[in-house]
């Protein structure tokens, strides 16, 4: 039984079959409808209309698939198969098997010694035994294959290390509001390994800067942080470190400060609110303890054109909100409000006190990355050595006015034949003699 299992694991056909199954499942995972990205209504509609498709999609959609134990058996088997094949190949060493054979001969006055010198001048490793010469090239190619497969195995190690040590969470910071890092301060924890080793630092978004070229094209965004009192600038792509953890800028948005009083003059809200307002998108907030909801649309650089309103640029040069007040779903009124202005909208007196930014940061740690980078290095090195130094061997006999070559190469037979022919041509022309 064990012998049979090992035999299967050592089978190259089995390795290819595993890869094919994996590719097919991944294709299905990315091609089927993404139920997790659907609204509940869309999901219900699909389930009612196409129950089979819904069930298959639910089981095979990518995020479910890659976490499924049934799927994880595949990479495990690929790992075992690769490990077994690599171990066997390493033990058996480089062997001139498979590949292509080619024989050629021609007239030549060169003797074995001169032929040997000719081959050596073309970087063949030459060994002589009587009239016969053996020349090798690219025998490191075998080790390239071993290094490549070790690189593949290291990917699996990287994945295991990542899954055991990875921490990845979203931290929402609003300008001027410090946050002490801890389990409850994260908006969402995607991977929670090593949370205990996260330094309990206090993080403050001191200032957020956005830079646009000609007020249109995004150029640079930076979160100026104070981490335990130390200044750190975090730009997109340029994260900062907190101990072993990294803090990166992920998204940002606007956080206006509103003061709202009702018709009796009672202050019902005085807060800075993080709103999602990209590209004219509308966001809303409820006023706690009241039946009121406020829908907000933001114009960072407010402008009018006839009866149309809009924003000239994405830069907050002239920030104006269009606010719509509703009471239990019933519209009470709407109106525009500029920075540091007070307006009465739908019976509420609203003051737009200030405009800040919020920044969504990704706090993460992943020791698997360096193993992954190492594995890619080994894969590329191994492949380059394996295919760049293609293993070749020549057995040459020379004498009595003739040269005969029996050649073997691992890959590229047509190019190898050309190479052999060139040697015969040089030997025929006595080229080595004439040039040396």
């Amino acid at each position, binding site marked *: 039984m064990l012998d049979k299992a090992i035999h299967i694991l050592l089978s190259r056909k089995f390795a*290819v079959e595993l*890869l094919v199954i994996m590719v097919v499942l991944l294709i299905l995972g990315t091609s089927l409808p*993404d139920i997790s990205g659907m609204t509940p209504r869309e999901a219900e509609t699909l389930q009612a209309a196409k129950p089979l498709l819904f069930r298959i999609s639910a089981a095979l959609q990518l995020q479910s698939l890659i976490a499924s134990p049934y799927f994880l058996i595949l990479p495990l088997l690929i790992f075992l198969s690769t490990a077994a094949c690599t171990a066997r190949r390493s033990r058996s060493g480089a062997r001139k098997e498979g590949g292509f054979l080619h024989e050629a001969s021609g007239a030549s006055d060169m003797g074995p010694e001169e032929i040997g010198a000719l081959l050596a001048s073309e970087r063949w490793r030459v060994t002589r035994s009587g009239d016969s010469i053996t020349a090798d090239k690219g025998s490191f190619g075998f080790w390239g294959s071993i290094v490549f497969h070790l690189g593949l195995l290291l990917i699996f190690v990287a994945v295991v290390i990542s899954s055991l040590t990875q921490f990845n969470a979203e931290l929402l910071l609003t300008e001027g509001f410090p946050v002490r890092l801890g389990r409850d301060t994260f908006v969402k924890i995607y991977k929670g390994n090593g949370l205990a080793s996260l330094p309990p630092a206090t993080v403050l978004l001191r200032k957020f800067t956005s830079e646009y070229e000609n007020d249109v094209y*995004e150029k640079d965004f930076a979160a100026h942080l104070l981490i335990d009192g130390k200044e750190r600038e975090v730009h997109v792509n340029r994260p900062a470190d907190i101990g072993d953890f*990294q803090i990166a800028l992920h998204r940002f948005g606007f956080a206006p400060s509103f003061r709202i009083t009702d018709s009796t003059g009672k202050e019902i809200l005085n807060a800075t609110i993080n709103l999602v*307002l990209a590209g004219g998108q509308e966001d809303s907030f409820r006023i706690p303890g009241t039946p009121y909801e406020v829908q907000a649309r933001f114009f960072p650089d407010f402008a009018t054109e006839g009866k149309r309103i809009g924003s000239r640029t994405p830069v907050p040069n002239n920030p104006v909100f269009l606010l719509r007040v509703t009471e239990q779903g019933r519209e009470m009124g709407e109106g525009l409000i500029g920075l540091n202005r007070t307006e009465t909208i739908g019976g509420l007196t609203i003051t737009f006190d200030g405009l800040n930014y919020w920044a969504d940061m990704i706090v993460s740690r992943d020791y698997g990355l360096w193993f992954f980078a190492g594995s890619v290095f080994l894969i590329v090195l191994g492949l380059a050595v394996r295919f760049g130094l293609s293993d070749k061997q020549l057995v040459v006999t020379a004498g009595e006015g003739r040269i005969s070559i029996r050649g073997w190469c691992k890959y590229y037979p047509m190019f190898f034949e050309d190479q052999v022919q060139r040697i015969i041509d040089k030997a025929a022309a006595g080229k080595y003699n004439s040039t040396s």
Partner: protein
Amino acid sequence: MNPVEGFLLWSSIFVLLFAFFGYLTGTVFKKERLFTISHRGTLAACVLMAAAIGVRWIATGHIPVMGTYENSLVGAWTVVVGLVVAGRYFPRGTLLSLVLLPLALLIVGNGIMTNAVLAPLEPPYQSPWLYVHVLFAWFAFGAYLLASTVGGLYLVRSRAEGRDGVERIREFLPPLRKLDEICLRFIIFGFITDAVMIGAGAIWARGLWGRYWGWDPIETWSLISWLTYGINLHLRLTLGWKGKKAAWVALLSFVGILISFFGFGLVEGVHTQIMKPR
């Protein structure tokens, strides 16, 4: 679009069109001289396109990799460079040119129809890894395209073997064994550069999104493509597939690359969510 860049690009398009019709006329009407002229035209177009890319690079201050126009410009150039490189193995380069020149024209035409405005590099792209990632992506995609084209031409030539009336196809294509080997070489080249592309992307992603792999659709399709070409190599080198079977696999494997390339920007995922105010 910069006026100099526009001039260079449109010149290259006209030269490519001229070269294509040269190859077509030469093939149909057996005008041998046209092949030499068309080959020179292709080389000239390659240089003109490279100059257009250079001018744009200087004008924007960054490698042209943002948006459909820039990707199409570099993509079409990669196809033409690939054609020049692979053309060495093809007698007069005719059939390969008749496949790849219209493809390059289609790619660049598609790009010109989109927004070609000169814009600075958006913050998520401002990483040294961008250069490695994108450069090797083009190497890989170009090599895979050539591998699939050569695979297709292998099938064309194998159909022509032993049949009367199609001697000219045999005349314009290398022997089957050589086509098979060229196809393998391009797959190997693509496979290695693809690995560099994925590795560079992963390291870049760690600084940008806090993880090196997230099963984003584009990432997943890159992996699918890499694995598919890994299967290609296994089938050819360890299971001994060659000839028509191997050519069909090389031809069909390119579907994954097409999805990776054209899926960029179409499929929802972090690759399409660039940094904007929310």
